[in-house]
């Protein structure tokens, strides 16, 4: 099929071509999404208003965007770290749930003195996320169990665990809803006085800095690059492969766990069933579009935060499910992936022989 066109693999694509394909794919994905939304009755001016003007160009819209971006930055960084050592951490939701549960556990049981409680919650969240991914990592190292499946299954398991806690031990006795009791004020991330934006922003920015240091400045960065590029070479040249993989994969789990803790302590102030929903693809989309670069993650996460915010608005005014955001993610990812064809291969017309 398609034999009139020849595909020839390029050794390396010129920078302008990669860039063109990337942004072309991005534009066509977003354009396609816009068309679909218009097809469902959203007018084009509204689209522009909601997705561009309201979310990025007004102060109160921007604060919602930034609030939404905080956990997205964390999961994006998390997925990027594992991606760098070619570990497919797909089930980031599982680590996120575990992080949120650990933070809630600290809150519910009033662990530690009040002034450091919040710190404890965040550390517990990171530890729980790291521990949860450690299961998948151990399975992979010991028995070569593919992490795509194990992290996903662990994600489902963590979700049922959350349900179990919310409908059982942690059920809010005041409201009777399946949420944990509300966190005390000492257990919340303070608002910064700009809409809903909270201290989690500093956590996310610190994480960006730490990840930049890890991947671009420290020795681990080069080791991870070698492990990701060619595992056998990394082994044969005597690099500490196991240590490098452990640092990046556990770090990935810890960041995703931290995201769960930050959502619980920064926006929801409790553990609820809606905390982790929809993050499963966000991590992959952000990490892929940002090419696993921490600063890129920041930019893409803010953009996706805007789309999420606008999606919320669409739900209120047009009755369009927030699943529209998921659809946009899928479309953009697919079209950027497909557009890479033009930078990875040289397309020529077959000349008659």
């Amino acid at each position, binding site marked *: 099929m398609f034999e009139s066109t020849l595909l020839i693999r390029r050794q390396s694509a010129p920078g302008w071509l990669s860039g063109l394909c990337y942004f072309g794919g991005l534009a066509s994905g977003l354009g396609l999404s816009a068309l679909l939304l218009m097809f469902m009755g959203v007018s084009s001016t509204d689209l522009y208003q909601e997705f561009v003007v309201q979310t990025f160009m007004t102060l109160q819209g921007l604060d919602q965007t930034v609030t939404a971006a905080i956990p997205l930055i964390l999961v994006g960084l998390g997925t990027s770290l594992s991606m760098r050592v070619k570990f497919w951490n797909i089930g980031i939701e599982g680590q996120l749930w575990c992080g949120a549960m650990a933070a809630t556990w600290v809150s519910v049981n009033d662990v530690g003195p009040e002034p450091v409680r919040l710190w404890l919650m965040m550390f517990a969240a990171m530890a729980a996320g790291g521990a949860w991914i450690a299961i998948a990592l151990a399975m992979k190292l010991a028995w070569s169990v593919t992490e795509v499946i194990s992290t996903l299954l662990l994600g489902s398991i963590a979700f049922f665990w959350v349900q179990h806690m919310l409908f059982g031990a942690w059920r809010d006795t005041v409201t009777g809803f399946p949420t944990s009791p509300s966190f005390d004020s000492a257990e919340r991330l303070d608002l910064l006085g700009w809409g809903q934006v909270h201290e989690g922003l500093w956590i996310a920015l610190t994480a960006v800095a730490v990840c930049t240091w890890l991947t671009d400045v420290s*020795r681990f960065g080069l080791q991870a690059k*070698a492990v990701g590029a060619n595992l056998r070479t990394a082994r044969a040249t005597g690099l500490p492969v196991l240590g490098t993989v452990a640092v990046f994969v556990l770090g990935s789990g810890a960041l995703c766990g931290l995201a769960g803790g930050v959502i619980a302590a920064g926006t929801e102030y409790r553990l609820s069933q809606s905390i982790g929903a929809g993050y499963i693809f966000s991590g992959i989309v952000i990490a892929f579009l940002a090419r696993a670069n921490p600063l890129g993650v920041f930019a893409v996460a803010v953009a996706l935060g805007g789309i999420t915010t606008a999606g919320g608005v669409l739900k209120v005014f047009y009755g369009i499910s927030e699943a529209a955001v998921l659809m946009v993610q899928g479309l953009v990812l697919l079209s950027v992936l497909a557009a890479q064809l033009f930078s990875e291969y040289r397309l020529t017309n077959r000349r008659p022989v």
Partner: protein
Amino acid sequence: MMSKIKTLLKSPGSHKAGGRPPALLLQGIDKTFDGKKVLSCAGFRLEWGEVHALVGENGAGKSTIMNVATGVYAPDCGKVIVDGRDVPLRNPADAIVAGIGMVHQHFRLVGRFTVAENVALALGGAGRRCSIGEAAHLIEEKSGELGFSLDPNARVERISVAEQQRAEIVKVLLLGAGIMILDEPTAVLTQGETRGLLSLLQRLALAGHAVVLITHKLQEVADHCDQITVMTQGRTVLDAAPMAVTTIAQVTQLAFGEVKEKPPVQMGHFGDELLRIEDLEVGDGAVTLEGLTLSLRAGEIFGIAGVGGNGQSELVACLNGLIRPLDGRIVLTGLDLTNASPAQRRKAGLRIIPADRFDSAMAGDLTLSENLTLTSLDSGRFGPWWRMSRKAMIRDAEKSLKDFNVLGGTPETKASLLSGGNAQKVLLARELSAGTRVVVAHSPVRGLDVRSVNAVLDLLAESAKEGAACLLISEDLDEILHMCSSVAVLNRGRLSAPLSGADLNPTRLGELMVGHV
């Protein structure tokens, strides 16, 4: 005898046998792989009823031009004429219809399928659908006709390489190929098997087939082929000359350039023993190494000759620490490295140049400076663990590239973009750095151009002169005889006793290489 008969049948020099148009005519073929021209205006002319040798160095474009003829590669330009007709070869299916079959160097057989399933698959692809049972029957019939036995119900991955080759030949013939192309078919065969195959090819030619034999073994060409075409660097330099009027010396010069008598590198004054391998047993890959013992002294270049696939890769991977031996010891100056990690081996001064550098020595996606730095990250030369100094990396890399005369790249160039010779020099720059005591080099010059070959071999000789011990594993006898004063042969996982002095000659080595141990 055979070739004499045929010389009588045909008038030498005339290209047309019985007025029939040539079986295969390739004209003005250009082919570019990502900007690199592999064929430039190459041509090939094959007559019916002949065994035609296609000779040339590695990378001369022999396989590529034949892959054009089988519809696999689409050429940039050029003409393919089959039996006088201008046939469009858009894909392999077109080539099958045109009656062209190829036995690839890496067999195109599905390893998990049986021989019969593979044949049924091929026949079905050619529009002659048949059941597995019918295919099995056809295979038995055809292999009987060709005079060998082949179990149609054996899984391909379980049978020997020679049997796989027979399966390929039977498959190609059952597809009705009048034109048969064989890519380096004898590289994997023993001497007896080789003789059998070559006489089979001659019989096929006598029966009217046209056969192309891609090879670099000139003796085979002289004894069994009727015509010869020589290619160098993507061009046809000798176009369909009758073997009867061509001398081997002519061909050698055309294909491989001037062969100079090089003085042997080794003088025979060696220092203390550096590396000792005792009774090594490795059973990880397809070949099992058994009872491998050898000893290397300072300043010595010890050669391991042998046809590829007889345990060389397993030995190298085991020395590198990538696979664990089942038994035996590896000792480097009194230090037992048998179960040491790659990092510990490196620290002890053991350096490996594997046959495929981008498999287990370098990463193609990393830059040259990164590749050069990989092995000395913890030396502290490039800053503490929490802050790598890119500047120091680049400075070091610039010096290495200059010292080792690497062309075509800066420290920031991706390693995969370098030519083979330059990439190999980068690897040597890294591995022959300070602290090298033992170098294990596996086919270090395979596929390199002449100038790089000399540079690489000189570097190895240099490091031996400076007191390192070198283990040179290679299929190329000339290279080994030039470099080494004692040589052992690896055959089916077993290493022969070392030969040196008068015993060390091509004939004796050849016997050991193909002999059944």
